[in-house]
């Protein structure tokens, strides 16, 4: 079920400088959302800025009928999001993550705000009794989000920062040791493209499957405008096609994506 609705904002929180958490009342969406899906959110009540912004579903509360969004204030649109009493949203949109079979060995890698959709996945994993290893990477400690909450879900967290202000000093992909990776059943990730590209290379080498949540600039969010193109493989090794992040994704199999 896909909806457009004016959802009442029931809570807003600045969780860290530049990061907000917004909760809206949208029972139908709360009940039908899967981890990895997103909402297409109207940021302005004028014509500037014009387009909706895609924001992942961060967590849902079916009992209260609420959906939470975790977002980084990246520009003008996201800067306006916390101004309203009501938020006009479309969703849930896109194809989310597929949960692994019970007792799978799972790694979840989040780069910065990439944790937004992955937290919902981590909730589902712990509901299923699965425990995941979670690697969080960020430029510095101030961009590491939700560590405590992830621990509370029962998952173990490792951290890497570019400036060494927290955890391993370096890239999050550097803490993916070959031994560890090769023992995995599935890698879930969302983050900056260079991080995901590097991770795709690593898991390919060890033949581990991955579910990667991609970003692309969007128009419609429903597959109508063909704007959110992402290069993917076809049957032929020499060929490619353009898939669309809003309907074919945002979650793609790592091996499907042409990482250039």
């Amino acid at each position, binding site marked *: 079920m896909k909806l457009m609705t004016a959802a009442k904002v029931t809570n807003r929180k600045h969780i860290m400088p530049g990061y907000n958490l917004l909760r809206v009342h949208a029972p139908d969406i709360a009940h039908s959302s899967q981890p990895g899906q997103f909402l297409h959110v109207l940021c302005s009540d004028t014509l500037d800025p*014009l387009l909706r912004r895609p924001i992942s579903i961060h967590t849902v509360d079916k009992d209260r009928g609420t959906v939470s969004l975790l977002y980084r204030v990246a520009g003008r649109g996201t800067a306006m999001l916390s101004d309203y009493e009501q938020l006009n949203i479309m969703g849930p949109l896109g194809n989310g993550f597929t949960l692994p079979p019970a007792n799978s060995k799972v790694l979840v890698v989040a780069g910065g705000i990439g944790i937004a959709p992955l937290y919902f996945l981590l909730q589902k994993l712990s509901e299923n009794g699965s425990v995941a290893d979670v690697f969080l990477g960020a430029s510095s400690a101030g961009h590491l989000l939700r560590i405590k909450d992830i621990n509370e879900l029962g998952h173990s967290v490792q951290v890497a920062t570019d400036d060494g202000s927290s955890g391993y000093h370096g890239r999050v992909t550097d803490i993916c040791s070959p031994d560890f990776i090769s023992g995995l059943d599935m890698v879930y990730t969302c983050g900056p493209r260079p991080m995901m590209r590097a991770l795709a290379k690593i898991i390919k080498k060890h033949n581990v499957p991955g579910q990667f949540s991609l970003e692309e*600039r969007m*128009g419609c969010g*429903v597959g*109508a405008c063909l704007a959110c*193109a*992402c290069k993917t493989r076809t049957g032929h090794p020499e060929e*490619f096609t*353009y898939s669309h992040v809003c309907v074919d994704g945002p979650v793609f199999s790592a091996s499907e994506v042409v990482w250039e």
Partner: protein
Amino acid sequence: MRTDINLGVNCAGIKMKNPVTTASGTFGFGEEYAHYLDLSSLGALVVKGTTLHPRKGNPPPRIIETPCGILNAIGLQNPGVDIVVDEILPRLQQFSIPVIVNISGDTPDDYGLVAKKLDQSYAACIEVNVSCPNVRKGGMQFGSDPAAAAEVTRVVKANTNLPVIVKLSPNVTDMVRVAQSVAEAGADGLAMINTLLGMKIDIHTMRPVLGNTMGGLSGPAVKPIAVRAVWQVFKETNLPIIGMGGITCADDALEFIMAGATAVAVGTANFINPRATVDIIEGIEQFLVKNGYSDVNQLIGKAHQ
């Protein structure tokens, strides 16, 4: 829907139950929006630009926001006319509304071949895109030269019995001349405007943002240009016009109708409000009631009187 108000229009021989349709490329094949509105309530459905062979389209980014507008450089990604005719159009039959297929090609012959295939399909009408700024060959090239636009029109007409609407480019010195030229070549109607050629540079990467460097500008920003184009062409030709460019609400649609449009198409606004088309249909009806009109046809070209 009030029974004492007529919203129906006849546009280039297509009977539309109201003057509102969709702008090609902004509404997919309609089905993408079927969750958000009842497609059968539209006056007509104009589907994505279709070519002889499937096309991959341009590398991303394909879209970028600009002040009150967007630039797109999709590059006519589409499954090719065969899939459209064999798989998609049959599915659209259930909605019982006229389906207008927008077509493009590299050469006039391409257009002709596509038209021929559509002639036997469920399509109600062909919209000839001689104005796409986002492909290297064909596209806007045809649309910016009155003689070339006429040539494409003639070839399409020769290959189909369906009504033929030619979609004009605003990126020309004189749209009226192109309009007159395709009218003489046998066009049954005109659609205007396609997007304006534009671009955006990312000052941080210091490179053009779009994968294709340039793109087509659409959305509210271009509305004054589109209204002017409809006004000018209405004055100088007798063909029915599907007006578009920046329509977001009923007031915008009425502006185009008063400028001379028989029907209007909603494009970019669908992305912001997927129910824009149906909201506009309702708003037009309300305007008629409030102002004592019983028929939308009374307003076509009204601003010229």
